[in-house]
């Protein structure tokens, strides 16, 4: 702009500038091509890896180098999975099992996460309370909580409740520690500033503490959902009427490794879908965050 405005008289388009625009366009073009190439290579490598692992497994079991009776076989796992969906199990439709496990995990996740967030925020705010309860929380955290499943089964029977509780307990600690830490990491300057501006304690929590801790809390939710599934499955293995855990346990009892792997496969898909949803929620809630520097790639 400054070049054009200071140049005397009518001028033709500056050759140097159109040159640089040309250079810029071709650089953009080259950059895009390089990126496409990289993405193609990436997916080829990923696919190749899967073929290597699953194909190797299939090959070794077919050649009887590894016994498929103990270690299963990819083709067998796939057949068993289809069979489960088509014919169900001896206890009824496979969909009922999936739905039961999902229900237990989701309820456990919700209860555990909510309790973890509330208590984490409360203890993060109140230093005295945190110091009083701190050692006890550490003690409880040191207990192998999965064993609580046995107690819950004894106390609440083999219905949905003990699995929800076990899931919630596992989820709680993950979320709690992150929420607690998140509150501790809040910028002191920001709190001082909003207090001086006239914020009440409730204002501080709503406008500062909660959004600030949210980064930590949401990061913990990814891990926490995995724990919720583990809680539900272990609860079902310990004793249940329905559930994927029960299917896995039954398969184990009848020396059917393909059945165990089929249950694992279904659970993995559920967890991946949950992960996808959580990532979406995370993007929405944390849209204010600056893009990470790696997103602008050097050409």
């Amino acid at each position, binding site marked *: 702009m400054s070049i054009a405005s200071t140049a005397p008289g009518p001028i033709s388009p500056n050759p140097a500038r159109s040159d640089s625009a040309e250079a810029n366009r071709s650089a953009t073009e080259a950059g895009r091509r390089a990126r496409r190439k990289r993405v193609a290579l990436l997916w080829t490598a990923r696919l190749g890896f899967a073929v290597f692992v699953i194909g190797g497994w299939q090959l070794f079991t077919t050649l009887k180098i590894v016994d498929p009776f103990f270690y299963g076989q990819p083709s067998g796992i796939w057949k068993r999975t289809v069979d489960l969906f088509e014919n169900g199990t001896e206890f009824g439709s496979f969909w009922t099992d999936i739905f039961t496990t999902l229900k237990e995990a989701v309820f456990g996740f919700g209860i555990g996460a909510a309790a973890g967030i509330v208590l984490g925020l409360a203890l993060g705010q109140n230093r005295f309370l945190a110091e009083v309860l701190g050692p006890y929380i550490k003690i409880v955290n040191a207990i192998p909580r999965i064993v609580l499943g046995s107690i819950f089964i004894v106390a609440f029977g083999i219905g949905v409740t003990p699995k929800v509780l076990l899931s919630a307990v596992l989820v709680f600690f993950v979320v709690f520690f992150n929420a607690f830490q998140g509150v501790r990491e809040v*910028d002191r*300057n*920001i709190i*001082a*500033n*909003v*207090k*001086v*501006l*006239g*914020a*009440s304690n409730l*204002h501080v929590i709503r*406008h*500062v503490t909660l*959004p*600030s801790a*949210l980064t930590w809390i949401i990061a913990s939710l990814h891990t926490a959902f995995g724990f919720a599934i583990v809680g539900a499955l272990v609860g079902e293995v310990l004793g249940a009427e329905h559930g994927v855990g029960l299917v896995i346990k039954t398969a184990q009892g009848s020396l059917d490794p393909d059945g165990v792997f089929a249950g694992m496969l279904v659970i993995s898909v559920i967890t991946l879908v949950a992960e996808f949803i959580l990532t979406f929620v995370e993007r929405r809630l*944390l849209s*204010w*965050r*600056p893009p990470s520097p790696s997103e602008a790639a050097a050409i």
Partner: protein
Amino acid sequence: MASRNQLANRPVAGAFEADASRIEVTGLTKRFLTPKGEAFTALRDVTFTVEPGQFCAVVGPTGCGKSTTLGMVSGLDRPSEGSVKVGGREVTGITQGISFMFQQDALLPWKTVVGNVEMGPIFRGLGKRQARDLARDWLRRVGLAGFEEHHPHQLSGGMRKRVAMAAALINEPKILLMDEPFGALDVQTKAIMQTELLGLWEQLRPSVLFITHDLDEAVALADRVVVMTSGPGSVKAVYDVDLPRPRGAVQEIRYEPKFLEIQHRIWESLREEVERAYARTAGVNA
């Protein structure tokens, strides 16, 4: 204007109101307990007064307790001895009608620019709609119209400072506390921000307590300069700067003979302290 008057929650009106912004610091002493369990005196017997509507700068070497003093004027911190009075009343909680500006801007990264500025009025109980209108108005005043929906990380350092300034002034504070607000800016941006601050201050005339280690900045902006010594912090001398107002562009006032004369006089006093403080830290490092 009407909406702005609604916002001002000053307890008194009229001639009395002017006195409400006087800051009297008397015999202020602050001791901390070090992690080793020893008492450490950060401030000893600090006494000075900021007249209503006065721009007062505090200069001194690093670690002389300048920020500690501000914390006690704002009511965020308690003195060990002595008192701070604002408008004749002793400070016991968060002081009413003050605003703060820090070196690192205390903007909320998850709020938009307008969301950051409207916080003050919302905390004071103004409706969401009115607060937003007021915030837009203030963003126009600091030259940021069109950036309302940006997030702080999308702005330059100078622009973030403007947002912080709008957020600090929107409540029309009677006292403005500034802790090296322009310390992290480059020289050109700093000069522009200083000029803009003076412009806004001349419209609202709050009492300002402005902490800096930059003597040029202190003399260019302030009516009164308090020089502090370090270890423990105490007041060494108080200088009145009688440069005429309005002062206009900060870049130009620096070359006026009168500015240089005052600056030189204060520097004589400050240099000793800076050298002493430097010798101490250099000695520790060696």
